[in-house]
């Protein structure tokens, strides 16, 4: 039974391990995955704790549907206080780890303290063991995984690991599983590193009873059919996420040269189809791989064709690698793209943050705010492929003044660099923006500004806003399961109706993260994909629990509010540039210069942006300062938090 998967509390300082069931009333309030992790984070960390100190608490989880017969329940969620911005730290990855953890008996891990030497956790059929990892320290992400399999003598072990970047406490080090599945954002790998925790290895053969197996099989077939028939998923399954970057670049919606341009010109060499050709040449005609039980299979396999790493096997590259190694630094070489992607995978660092910060440094270098003295002679101009890859290495190993400085993340780095470097840092809540440019898309700008884990598209982006869907279609989607009669606009340069869309998406994505499924299986990139009305059936057939669509919505709203409460406790202030729901001034002051004729010359209108935030806060039940009203907390049953029930 999915519901009898346990929660384990592991104190690395004392070695004490405690295993408990997850009570049904907690499930009904927070489901599992990210939602329950947020509850645990709020309850198990103290205000103001050092994110890289032993008092920070690391949550690792699967969703309530993980490893059941629902589509793509592949996702592992990781949460802690973020060493990047000091707000919610949260990362989500595909692959096969969370299902293996569930078969080993666990849905949630709560990891506290700090081991006195490198260790890893070995989780096997209900048992948890803390093992020595001194011999693994220094190994890359894949070396670590293969070594653990070898040591424990089982090729089916699935691991979540950190690479050298996590060990070196690079504040945007990620956690990884498999070749390239990464929990990338907000430095969860640094938190693991700070606890001397190199890896978590899981292997399980424990049954997960399906409540209604026949119905689950039949309904899953129908669900998968709905998912795989979507055009966007067929494209995804052919070209992977580079197709999104390519399409967005085509109309002028990506970041280029930090934030100077919204399009990279003449980049045919690294277009999705060009990547696809390399994959075909180096792997074969069938080169797409899938995460656990997923029929979208959006992960490309490739070997690097040329250069110092020629022949090396890797997977991806994804949207964010294209942004990091092409669009942002204005490079356009396939070799750089595939090599850069390989380095961050092997070393375990967030490609998005890495690319953003290096591009920021490139702009500062061209402006003279950084000089050869700080770069130790490295010519850090835009378009310098070699300097770009060298900088990746220096950050991972904290080499040179600039490498060590950028490894601290944007906020601390801007303090060290000084002058007006902060003005050029494109971030929200200490977290670099995705390599997308939202100046022509107010809805997306609102999403980035208000995302709980800092600038992020996967928290609430109404990406279908770009499709110019007829208003009736938008209304159908956005007025279930909660009625909405306000305005909606098909026009993506508009401001009206967008706050509701962002609010709806925020709840949709939270629900998905609680269920443990992939966002390509809901209304993210495709308007016709399953959401609130479809999930009760999946939940019922698999777990036997009955929910209405509205109840799932309420749970999502509650979980989002807990994340807000955590951020408020850590100092969130509405218009604060470091800890607020606010965007860099360039969004408001510098018009876009490239892209489709209707996209150029766009800025976000400050006044209208403020109004959007006001309206968004109203939907969430927050006051003008972004603080929940007492009646909101009461309505969501959060008035007694932290309640310390689990």
């Amino acid at each position, binding site marked *: 039974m999915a519901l009898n998967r346990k929660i384990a509390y592991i104190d690395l300082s004392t070695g004490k391990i405690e295993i408990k069931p997850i009570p049904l009333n907690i499930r009904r309030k927070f489901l599992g995955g990210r939602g329950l992790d947020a509850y645990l984070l709020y309850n198990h960390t103290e205000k103001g704790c050092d994110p890289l100190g032993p008092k920070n608490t690391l949550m690792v989880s699967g969703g309530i549907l993980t490893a059941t017969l629902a589509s793509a329940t592949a996702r592992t969620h990781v949460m802690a206080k973020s060493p990047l911005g000091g707000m919610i730290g949260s990362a989500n990855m595909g692959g096969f780890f969370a299902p293996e953890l569930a078969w080993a008996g666990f849905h949630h891990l709560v990891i506290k303290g700090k081991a006195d030497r490198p260790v890893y956790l070995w989780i096997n059929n209900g048992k948890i063991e803390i093992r020595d990892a001194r011999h693994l320290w220094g190994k890359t992400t894949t070396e670590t995984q293969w070594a653990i399999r070898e040591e424990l003598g089982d090729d089916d072990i699935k691991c979540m690991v950190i690479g050298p970047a996590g060990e070196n406490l690079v504040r945007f080090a990620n956690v990884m599983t498999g070749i390239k599945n990464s929990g990338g954002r907000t430095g969860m790998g640094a938190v693991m590193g700070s606890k001397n925790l190199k890896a978590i290895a899981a292997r399980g053969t424990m049954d997960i009873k399906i409540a*209604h197996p026949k*119905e689950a099989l039949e309904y899953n077939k129908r669900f998968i059919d*709905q998912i795989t*028939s*979507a*055009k966007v998923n*067929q*494209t995804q399954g*052919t*070209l992977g996420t580079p*197709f999104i970057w*390519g*399409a967005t*670049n*085509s*109309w*002028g919606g990506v970041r280029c040269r930090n934030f100077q341009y919204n399009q990279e*010109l*003449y*980049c*045919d060499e690294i*277009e*999705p*189809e060009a990547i696809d050709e390399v994959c075909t040449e180096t792997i074969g005609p069938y080169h797409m791989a899938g995460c656990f039980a997923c029929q979208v299979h959006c992960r490309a396999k490739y070997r690097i064709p040329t250069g110092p790493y020629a022949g090396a096997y890797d997977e991806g590259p994804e949207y964010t690698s294209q942004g990091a190694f092409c669009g942002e630094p204005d490079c356009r070489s396939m070799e750089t793209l595939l090599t850069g992607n390989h380095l961050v995978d092997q070393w375990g660092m967030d490609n998005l943050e890495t690319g953003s910060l290096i591009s920021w440094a490139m702009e500062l270098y061209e402006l003279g705010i950084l000089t050869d003295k700080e770069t130790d002679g490295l010519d850090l101009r835009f378009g310098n492929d070699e300097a770009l890859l060298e900088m990746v290495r220096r950050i991972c190993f904290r080499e040179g003044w600039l490498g060590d400085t950028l490894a601290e993340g944007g906020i601390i780095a801007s303090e060290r660099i000084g002058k007006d470097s902060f003005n050029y840092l494109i971030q929200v809540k200490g977290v670099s923006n995705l390599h997308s440019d939202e100046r*022509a898309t107010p809805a997306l700008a609102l999403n980035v500004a208000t995302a709980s884990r800092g600038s992020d598209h996967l928290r609430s982006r109404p990406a279908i806003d770009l*499709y*110019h*869907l007829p208003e009736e*279609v938008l209304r*159908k*989607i956005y007025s*279930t399961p909660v009625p909405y009669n306000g305005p909606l606009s*098909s*026009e*993506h*340069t508009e401001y009206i109706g967008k706050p509701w869309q962002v609010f709806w998406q925020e709840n949709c994505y939270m629900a998905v993260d609680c269920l443990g499924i992939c966002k390509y299986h809901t*209304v993210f990139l495709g*308007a*016709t*994909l*399953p*959401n609130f*009305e*479809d999930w*009760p*059936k999946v939940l*019922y057939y698999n777990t036997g629990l*009955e929910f209405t669509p509205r109840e799932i919505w309420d749970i999502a709203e509650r979980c989002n509010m807990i994340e807000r409460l955590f951020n408020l406790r850590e100092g969130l202030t509405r218009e604060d540039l470091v800890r607020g729901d606010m965007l860099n001034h360039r969004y408001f002051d510098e*018009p876009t*210069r*490239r*892209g*489709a*004729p*209707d*996209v*150029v*010359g766009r*800025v976000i*209108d400050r006044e209208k942006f403020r109004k959007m935030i006001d309206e968004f806060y109203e939907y969430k039940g927050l006051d003008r300062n972004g603080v929940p009203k007492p009646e909101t907390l009461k309505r969501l049953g959060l008035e007694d938090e932290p309640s310390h029930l689990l």
Partner: protein
Amino acid sequence: MGSEKEGLSTAESLRKTRTYGQFRCHNPSCMGRLQPQPGVNHVKCPACGMEFRVAWIKPNFPRIRGPVWDVNQKLAEEAFERKMKEEKRDGVK
């Protein structure tokens, strides 16, 4: 719930709105759809003049591979200059 025959959800009912064989011009003001002839690798939007290179996911499934850079870049530059002039006249939009 249980085993009774269930109707279509909103997502399932929207499935009929899917349009294969077409895509939209990348310019926000172009609400019309472009339907390239099978196999072609280039389209020009009749409404706004943007030009795109076309790739095919499947024989009946085209997508925009990327812009025709020279053409679209020129359109962008013209639009930018026009808008900056208008802005000087009317104030920021």
